[in-house]
C-alpha cells in the first residue's frame, strides 16, 4: 500500500470546489498529498525539498543578524606610536561572519564617536572593510575583498559598507580597518571612540500590524490535543479509489491533519483551537518550544538550517601584526583603552567571556571559530585554544591564515553544552613548551553557530 504524499504542490482548481459541484475524490486526495508532502519536507532530511531556509523554495531565509556588539572602547593614535596606533598605522578589528546558503550580501555598520574627531575625520582617517574567507586572508568568495566605508553623521559617525556578490556560503571575516593618515595634521594625538558594530543582512523593517487575532474562524476546531507536538495520520491511496464515496471520515481526518500541520509549523493555534497550549509561557527561560523549531534536538532527523548564534570581536591588532597595547603596561580600568594582548601561560585559562543562549541542537551541530593574533614571527605551533561552555574542552592548535601569518584560525564542532540554557561562553587558551611570542597572544574574535 502507498501513502498519499505529493512531491510537488498539486492543489485543486477553483471549479472543483464551487457550490453545487460534486466533491471529487481528487480534491481530498490532493489536499492530503500536499499536506503529507509539506510535512515530509519539514521533518525529513531525505524529503523531496528539505526545508533548510535557503530561500530558493526550501524555506524563507532567516535574516538573523550576524553581529550586534556594544564596543565601548577608545582607540588612540599618536605620532610617536606609543599608544594604540602610530601616525600612519592601520588597525584591524575582525568579526566572523557565517554566510548561510542563499545569502549573497552583508551590511556592515560601525559607529564611532568623538565630537572633535568627527569634525575633521576625513583628513585623519581612512576607514575600510575587508571581507575575506576566514582561513584565507586573500580570498573573498566572490565578493569585494576590500572597500572604502561610507561615512555619515556629525557628532557620531556611522561607517557603513555593503558587500555583495557572495557566491559561496561559509565562514568569513569582516575586518574593520581604520588607517591613520594624520602625519600632516597638527593634532598630536587622535582618539577614536569605537561605539558599536552591527553586521546584518540587507532587510526591510517589517510593516506593523499585519498579524491579527482572527475572530471569524469557528470554534472549536479539530486539532491536536494535550501535549502532542505534531498530529498527522497518514492516508493510503486505497482510500481514494475512483468512484468510492468520500465520507465524513475522510474530511474529518484530513481536517485534523491540516490543523496539526498548521500548529506544528506556525507555532500558533489552528483557528481558535482551545486545546492549544504553549509550554514556553515562562517569562524568561522557557522550555524548548514544542512545535517545529529547527533548534530542537529531539527533532534530530529534521532539516537543520545554518543558524548564527554569536560573533564577537575581543580586540584589535595592527595590520603589520603589532599589538595595540603593551601587555607590560596594560590599559587602566578607567581608560577603556582598546584591547591588550593576553600574556598566556601554560595553564589553560578562560578569556573573553560572553553571555549567550545555547540552542537546543543535537550534539556535534554546534560549530565554533576563534581568531588569535601574534606580534612577531614566533608562530602559533605552541598555542592551544578552544571555546568552553560547560566542561573543559579539547584544545586545538590554530592555523595561520593564508596571506596574514600574524593571524591564526581555530575551528571545530566538538563542544560540550547544555542545550537551551543561558550560559557563559569563554575562549580558553594556553601554551605548550616551545617558541612563543614573548608579548603573549591576542584573542581577536569568537564565533558560535549551528551547522547541519
Amino acid at each position, binding site marked *: 500500500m502507498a501513502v498519499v504524499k505529493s512531491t510537488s504542490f498539486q492543489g485543486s482548481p477553483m471549479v472543483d470546489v464551487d457550490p453545487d459541484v460534486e466533491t471529487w475524490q481528487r480534491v481530498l486526495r490532493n489536499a492530503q498529498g500536499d499536506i503529507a508532502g509539506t510535512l515530509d519536507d519539514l521533518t525529513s532530511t531525505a524529503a523531496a525539498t528539505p526545508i533548510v531556509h535557503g530561500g530558493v523554495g526550501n524555506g524563507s531565509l532567516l535574516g538573523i543578524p550576524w553581529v550586534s556588539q556594544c564596543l565601548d572602547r577608545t582607540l588612540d593614535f599618536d605620532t610617536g606610536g606609543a599608544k594604540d596606533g602610530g601616525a600612519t598605522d592601520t588597525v584591524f578589528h575582525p568579526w566572523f561572519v557565517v554566510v548561510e546558503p542563499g545569502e549573497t550580501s552583508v551590511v556592515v555598520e560601525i559607529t564611532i564617536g568623538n565630537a572633535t574627531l568627527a569634525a575633521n575625520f576625513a583628513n585623519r582617517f581612512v576607514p575600510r572593510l575587508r571581507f575575506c574567507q576566514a582561513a584565507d586572508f586573500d580570498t573573498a568568495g566572490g565578493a569585494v575583498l576590500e572597500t572604502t566605508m561610507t561615512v555619515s553623521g556629525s557628532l557620531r559617525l556611522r561607517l557603513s559598507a555593503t558587500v555583495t556578490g557572495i557566491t559561496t556560503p561559509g565562514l568569513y571575516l569582516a575586518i574593520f580597518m581604520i588607517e591613520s593618515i594624520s602625519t600632516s595634521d597638527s593634532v598630536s594625538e587622535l582618539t577614536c571612540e569605537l561605539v558599536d558594530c552591527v553586521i546584518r543582512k540587507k532587510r526591510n523593517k*517589517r510593516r506593523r500590524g*499585519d*498579524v491579527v487575532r482572527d475572530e471569524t474562524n469557528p470554534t472549536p476546531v479539530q486539532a491536536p490535543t494535550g501535549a502532542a507536538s505534531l498530529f498527522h495520520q497518514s492516508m493510503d491511496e486505497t482510500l481514494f479509489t475512483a468512484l468510492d464515496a468520500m465520507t465524513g471520515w475522510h474530511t474529518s481526518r484530513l481536517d485534523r491533519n491540516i490543523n496539526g500541520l498548521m500548529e506544528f509549523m506556525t507555532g500558533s493555534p489552528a483557528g481558535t483551537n482551545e486545546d492549544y497550549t504553549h509550554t514556553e509561557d515562562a517569562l524568561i527561560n522557557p522550555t524548548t518550544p514544542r512545535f517545529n523549531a529547527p533548534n530542537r534536538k529531539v527533532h534530530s532527523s529534521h532539516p537543520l538550517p545554518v543558524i548564527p548564534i554569536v560573533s564577537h570581536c575581543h580586540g584589535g591588532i595592527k595590520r603589520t601584526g603589532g599589538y595595540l597595547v603593551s601587555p607590560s603596561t596594560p590599559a587602566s580600568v578607567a581608560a577603556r583603552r582598546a584591547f591588550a594582548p593576553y600574556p598566556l601561560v601554560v595553564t589553560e585559562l578562560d578569556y573573553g567571556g560572553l553571555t549567550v543562549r545555547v540552542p537546543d541542537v543535537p550534539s556535534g551541530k554546534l560549530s565554533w571559530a576563534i581568531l588569535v593574533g601574534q606580534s612577531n614571527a614566533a608562530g602559533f605551533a605552541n598555542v592551544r585554544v578552544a571555546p568552553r561552555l560547560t566542561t573543559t574542552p579539547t584544545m586545538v592548535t590554530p592555523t595561520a591564515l593564508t596571506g596574514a601569518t600574524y593571524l591564526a584560525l581555530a575551528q571545530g564542532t566538538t563542544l560540550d553544552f547544555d542545550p537551551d540554557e543561558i550560559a557563559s561562553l569563554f575562549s580558553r587558551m594556553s601554551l605548550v613548551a616551545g617558541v612563543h611570542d614573548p608579548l603573549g597572544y591576542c584573542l581577536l574574535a569568537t564565533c558560535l553557530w549551528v551547522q547541519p
Partner: protein
Amino acid sequence: MTARITSTRFLSSTATAKHAPAVAEVAQSLAGRPRVAWEMAHGISAVSGEAPVIGLNPQGLVGLDLSGPPFGAALLMPVETYSSGTGNGVVPASRWRTVDDDGHGATFNMWHRPHAQHTDGLGALQKVALAWSGQQSASTSTAWRWTITTPVAEVTIDRTVATTAITLHTETTLIPLRPGDNEITIRLVRVGATRTMNVLRWSFLTAAKRRHGLSFPG
C-alpha cells in the same frame, strides 16, 4: 498550472463530522489550506505564474522565518553582546570604565530582528532580557541599578549582589525594542556602598514567548 483554490478558513469540529451537510465551504477549506501551508513552509508561490497567497513575514520575505508565531517557533539567542574581559588575575586590567556614584553608560546602535507585531498588543518577542555577570571590588552586599533606555521605553533593573564574582543573572524585567534600528543607552550605577565594577559581561537575549491566539495573515 491552472489557478488553485486557497483558504485560511478553519472548519468547526462539526463541519466535517458524519452526516454534516456537504457544503462547498468544507471542500474549499480542505482544498485551500494546504496551499497556504505549502507556501509558508517553502517560502515561494505554490503555483507557477501566480503570486504567493500568504502575507509577508516580518523581514519582508515569504514564508516561515522562525521569528515567532505565526511565522514559526522563534529561535532564542543573544541579540546584543558586551564583554570587558574575564578578570581571572592574568588578564590585563579590565577595560570597563569604573562604575562609581556617577555610574557608567554606553549609547549604541543595534539592529533588532523584526518579529510579528500583533494588533492586540501581544508582542513579547519584540522584547529582550538582560543577562549579565561580572566582578565587583568587594565581597560585601552592594546594590546596582541598570537603566536601559530604548526608543520605546526606559527600564530600570535593580540587583543586589554580595560576592566579588557576580554569577550570571537573567533579569525578568523585559526591555522593549522596535524592529530594525534601535539607539540604546545602557547605564550601570552603584546605589549602595563604594564599589567598582572591574569586569562586566552583558547580553540582550531574545525573551520568552507568550501564548498567541493568532492566525497568520492570508
